[in-house]
């Protein structure tokens, strides 16, 4: 056993021969025996070292055992150090009381009975070992607690970090949705502008015509009536357009069965001017009885998104022979609708990404990358259908199956 692993016991006696005999008695107990020859020596030893037990001689010159023990008790660091007094004389109970008062845990008379000494020493050594073990466990517990605390804190920080990230994502999503709403509104306004430009022009001309005919003396009842009727007809048309656009952006409350041809016509009526302006011809060939059960306005939004996407695919300039084809038919109990353009198609590597949120090839500010993502959601999640895309000869085909 290493000297450091042995249990330290302080033996104090002013006589070296007494120390030697104590040492001999305890020799085989695996103790680290530290010897002191005076009270002062003993006090110094316990100040710097830890002991399981002090065997303290009572009768010593200068400072006797009682005094030494009292001083040990006064120091908080050594207050609980067990002390066994060992004495040759002073057998009176009075002395023993003094000893206990001074803090002794035991009082042994010489001649010492080795077995008693050894068993008493053993008890205190065991206590000491247990105390050390307890300290070790406490330290371990403390360090584990510390670890737990730091892990907990780390977890808290990570959780906070994740929450922050989630919140950031949510805000980003909100912002993108907001942006896409604004973009959709812009698109709608643009479509309304296209739809209204020509009727407003005719309206202006019809009104001016009345003035010119009046100046020329040719303003008769027929002209007035004719122009007023025409003006009213245009105004009703403009009013209807406003209703159409408003219906378009109002959410569906429940699923209904609706005619696909009617929905296609209604959607095209909103955007035909912006398509015509770009010189894009739209061909529609649909089975009249083709119908779908689902959310009508959402379905129209899908159509609009795909149509606008096709329109944008033709670029800013007019394209010779630009064409969008809308076809619909029944297939195994499902309605199939294809929207095809001849704008040159999509690069194959981009085809997979076209329905991803925020994916766009358009210039900054022109596309949010939300439109087709929403379209896929509407068809597949809300209506249980399928929306797919593929390149065909010279263009792109979107296929809706519901």
């Amino acid at each position, binding site marked *: 056993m290493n000297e450091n692993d042995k249990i330290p016991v302080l033996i104090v006696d002013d006589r070296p021969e007494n120390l030697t005999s104590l040492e001999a008695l305890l020799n085989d107990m695996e103790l680290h025996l530290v010897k002191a020859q005076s009270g002062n020596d003993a006090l110094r030893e316990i100040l710097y070292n830890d002991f399981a037990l002090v065997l303290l001689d009572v009768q010593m010159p200068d400072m006797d055992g009682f005094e030494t023990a009292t001083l040990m008790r006064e120091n908080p660091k050594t207050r609980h150090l067990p002390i066994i007094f060992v004495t040759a004389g002073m057998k009176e109970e009075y002395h023993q009381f003094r000893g206990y008062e001074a803090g002794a845990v035991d009082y042994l008379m010489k001649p010492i009975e080795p077995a008693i000494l050894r068993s008493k020493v053993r008890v205190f050594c065991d206590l000491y070992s247990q105390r050390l073990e307890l300290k070790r466990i406490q330290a371990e517990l403390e360090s584990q607690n510390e670890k737990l605390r730091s892990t907990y804190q780390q977890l808290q920080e990570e959780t906070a970090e994740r929450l922050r990230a989630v919140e950031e994502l949510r805000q980003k999503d909100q912002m993108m949705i907001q942006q896409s709403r604004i973009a959709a509104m812009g698109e709608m306004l643009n479509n309304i502008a296209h739809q209204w*430009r*020509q009727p*407003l*022009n*005719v*309206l*202006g*001309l*019809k009104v*001016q*015509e009345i003035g*010119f*005919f009046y100046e*020329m003396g*040719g303003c008769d009842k027929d002209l007035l009536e004719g122009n007023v009727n025409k003006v009213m007809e245009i105004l009703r048309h403009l009013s209807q357009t406003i209703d159409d656009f408003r219906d378009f952006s109002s959410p569906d409350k429940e699923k209904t069965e609706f005619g696909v041809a009617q929905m296609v016509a209604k959607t095209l009526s909103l955007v035909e001017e912006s398509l*015509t*302006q*770009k*010189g*894009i*011809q739209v061909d529609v060939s649909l089975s009249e009885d083709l119908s779908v059960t689902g959310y009508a306005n959402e379905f129209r939004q899908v159509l609009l998104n795909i149509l606008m996407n096709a329109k944008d695919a033709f670029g800013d300039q*007019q394209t010779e022979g630009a064409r969008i084809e809308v076809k619909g038919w029944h297939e195994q109990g499902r309605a199939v609708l294809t929207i095809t353009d001849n704008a040159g198609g999509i690069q194959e590597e981009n085809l997979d990404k076209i329905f991803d949120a925020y994916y766009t090839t358009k210039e900054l500010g022109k596309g949010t990358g939300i439109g087709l993502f929403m379209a896929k959601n509407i068809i597949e999640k809300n209506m249980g259908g399928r929306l797919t895309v593929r390149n065909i000869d010279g263009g792109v085909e979107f296929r809706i199956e519901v």
Partner: protein
Amino acid sequence: MKISLLVVEDDNEASKIIQTLLAMKLPEVAVRVAENGRLGLEACRQQIPDIVITDLNMPDMDGVGMMEQIKELNCDTRFIVITGYSDKRERLDSLDIYDYFVKPTDFRKLLATLGSCISEIEATRS
């Protein structure tokens, strides 16, 4: 020789009223109409007009494309543009446009422009 004028406008309704008003206010001008850029260009190839009044956004060749091709016929036709969209204006820079109107058309202003345009043409002829 009569001043000749070509109206290129894809909105049939607007085109008809402009024809009526032109016939009433400028009876001495020979007016033809075309409903898109391609037909307008064809009309110019048959007979070059003195003045072309044109819309810009039309299916089947827009106004700018048509005017560029008419220019290639080496004529001194004057162009008056009437359009609903002001965003293509920079494309007109190289075309030497006589005048430019935004819809809805103010016919009185159009007449004033046509009046001065016709005077200029007549001055160069005499």
